[in-house]
């Protein structure tokens, strides 16, 4: 049997379309998406609730003292988080100091200066770097980066700048500095790719106007582009910082895992995330696991605090919010 061609035989419009349908779909869609959005709050609340529940015995026993004590002794059940807080903050700070200039420089080069044929491959490589799993980066850190830096870089720092407390003491290789360096490698891709998006969203007119006023390339880049994108770039750095604070596996492998507050960057340290990863499996009793829950709570608190401070700072910066990913 031959099917009738729609061309020769224009069928009447289906009755269903011409009559107004009850608009269930829109309503369902609205409520469904609302439920999804609310589930984010639910998740955050649940995580916080579970952490507080788990940490309760520790909080009850040590109270605020937990935050300022440097003791960590599972044998005698005495716990304090200060050495880990210090390690997390310092390693993240080192990471930012290294990663921010490199990332923003790369982003500026990619959007303003690089020849067209180079942009795509470079961008691809940066995104590839982001795809390297943390544990692989950690293994590379322990077997390649740390020995190399110890022999060619850390020893040099120790000999030439050893008079500064920052570079005193024996050089093991694994250290706070190595931890910061590995985190820097991990956050460079995210800061770079977000910064690149932001710089690309600066209108071309802005650049042309600056050139028209006789600005040099340097002036165009710093004033017209970076000045305009300031707020968004700050957001990119905060995204990177958020990742740096929570980074676990790679840091654990190169930081030396020693709970101490050492002035020297070449001395081993310890971070909040690392101590949870290292010790949770074998934590027995009630107080010990709960102390690790409390460490998790502190980490969550620091991350929230950083984000809130960042939001506050962001408000004080002028310029449009050109952060496409947020």
């Amino acid at each position, binding site marked *: 049997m031959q099917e009738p061609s729609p061309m020769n035989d224009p069928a009447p419009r289906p009755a269903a379309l011409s009559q107004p349908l009850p608009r269930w779909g829109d309503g369902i869609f609205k409520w469904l998406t609302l439920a999804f959005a609310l589930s984010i709050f639910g998740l955050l609340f649940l995580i916080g609730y579970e952490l507080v529940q788990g940490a309760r015995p520790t909080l009850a026993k040590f109270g605020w003292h937990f935050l300022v004590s440097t003791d960590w*002794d599972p044998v005698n059940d005495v716990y304090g988080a200060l050495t880990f807080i210090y390690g997390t903050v310092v390693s993240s700070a080192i990471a930012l100091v290294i990663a921010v200039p490199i990332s923003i420089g790369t982003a500026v080069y990619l959007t303003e200066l690089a020849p067209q044929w180079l942009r795509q491959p470079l961008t691809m490589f940066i995104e590839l770097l982001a795809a390297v799993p943390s544990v692989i980066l950690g293994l590379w850190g322990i077997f390649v980066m740390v020995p190399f830096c110890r022999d060619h870089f850390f020893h040099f720092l120790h000999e030439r700048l050893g008079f500064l407390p920052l570079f005193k003491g024996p050089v093991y290789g694994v250290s706070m500095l190595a931890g910061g360096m590995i985190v820097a490698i991990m956050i460079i891709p995210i800061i770079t790719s977000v910064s690149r998006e932001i710089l690309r969203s600066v209108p071309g007119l802005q650049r042309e106007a600056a050139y028209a006023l006789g600005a040099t390339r340097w002036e165009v880049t710093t004033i017209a582009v970076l000045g305009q994108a300031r707020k968004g770039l700050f957001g990119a750095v905060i995204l990177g910082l958020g990742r740096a604070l929570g980074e676990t596996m790679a840091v654990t492998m190169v930081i030396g895992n020693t709970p101490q507050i050492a002035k020297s960057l070449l001395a081993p340290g310890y971070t909040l995330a690392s101590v949870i990863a290292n*010790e949770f499996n*074998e934590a027995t009793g009630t107080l010990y696991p709960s102390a690790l829950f409390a460490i998790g709570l502190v980490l969550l608190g620091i991350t929230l605090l950083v984000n809130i401070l960042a939001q506050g700072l962001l408000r004080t910066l002028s310029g449009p919010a050109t952060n496409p990913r947020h």
Partner: protein
Amino acid sequence: MIEIKPERFLALLGFCFFAAWHLGAQTLINGAGSTFDYPAFTKWFEIYRGVDSNVSFNYQSIGSGAGQKLLLNQTVDFGASDAPMSVETMSTAPAPIIQLPIVAGGVAIIYNLPGDPRLKLDGPTLAAIFLGEITSWNDPKIAALNPGLNLPDVSIIPIHRADGSGTSYIFTDYLSTISPEWKQTVGKGSSVHWPSGIGLAAKGSEGVAGQVKQLPGGIAYAELAYADQSKIPFASIQNPSGQYVLPSPASVSAALATAAIPDDFRFSIVNSPGREAYPISGASWVLVYKAARNPGSGTPLASFLKWAITRGQTNCASLDYAPLPETVQQREIKILDTVN
């Protein structure tokens, strides 16, 4: 749309039912705990399939502490732990638990010195090194134990495990037995408060071995199998009979054979008195409910464990575990006869 003929569909459905029924006939036994035991269990499960194909096993190597916890929560049928479950923890269990040593192993003292000399050490010296009291390899105390060795003026870098581990438990158990000062200031446990400002910590046996390989002057402890495979030199340790003994399955078995083992199997074999005994040895325990919480799993589990502590012991010697001595095996069989 792919057409499925009705008879084919029925055949497929029948096959699915058959497969489900067949799987249902199998007893699945779940276990969790020590990572130290994991290679042994994996090997046993594979061989045991030939002994009793109706039982299948699932073992999660999530650490001794977690293994104990999951057994107490009745999530798993058996737990495995590198330290015996304490009387205190056992009192929180919903039903009586028995624990039996299932494998034993040695902890090797590995080091990195130029020329890979064969080092001899004793307990007090080892404790002093990890307490930071001996800081250089040419210290007279080390030299006195190693006449004839020309030890260099290199700083000692003690390296320990960063993650909680049974290996740390055995090592600190040994140091606590040997040195009153260690017992006072550090104590024993799967993670302890290591003397601050001394050396560094690495994650996992592979991390520790990697650090020792890279750091001249480094010294650490690791399971024998790890030291063997990584080709790192390890020290012979003086035992209470005054002999210097290298870790090996035989010397760990000797430690088990001469240790005093009580009826509740809560024991430690460090510093065991036998002439051939390696002093830094430890056992690993398997924990089960006396009356299985999961109906039907008790008898097959007990049969498997009986097999593992007798026939199974020879299968795991190639993995550098020390076989349990015959006397211990017999005592454990008697207890397993009461499990159902």
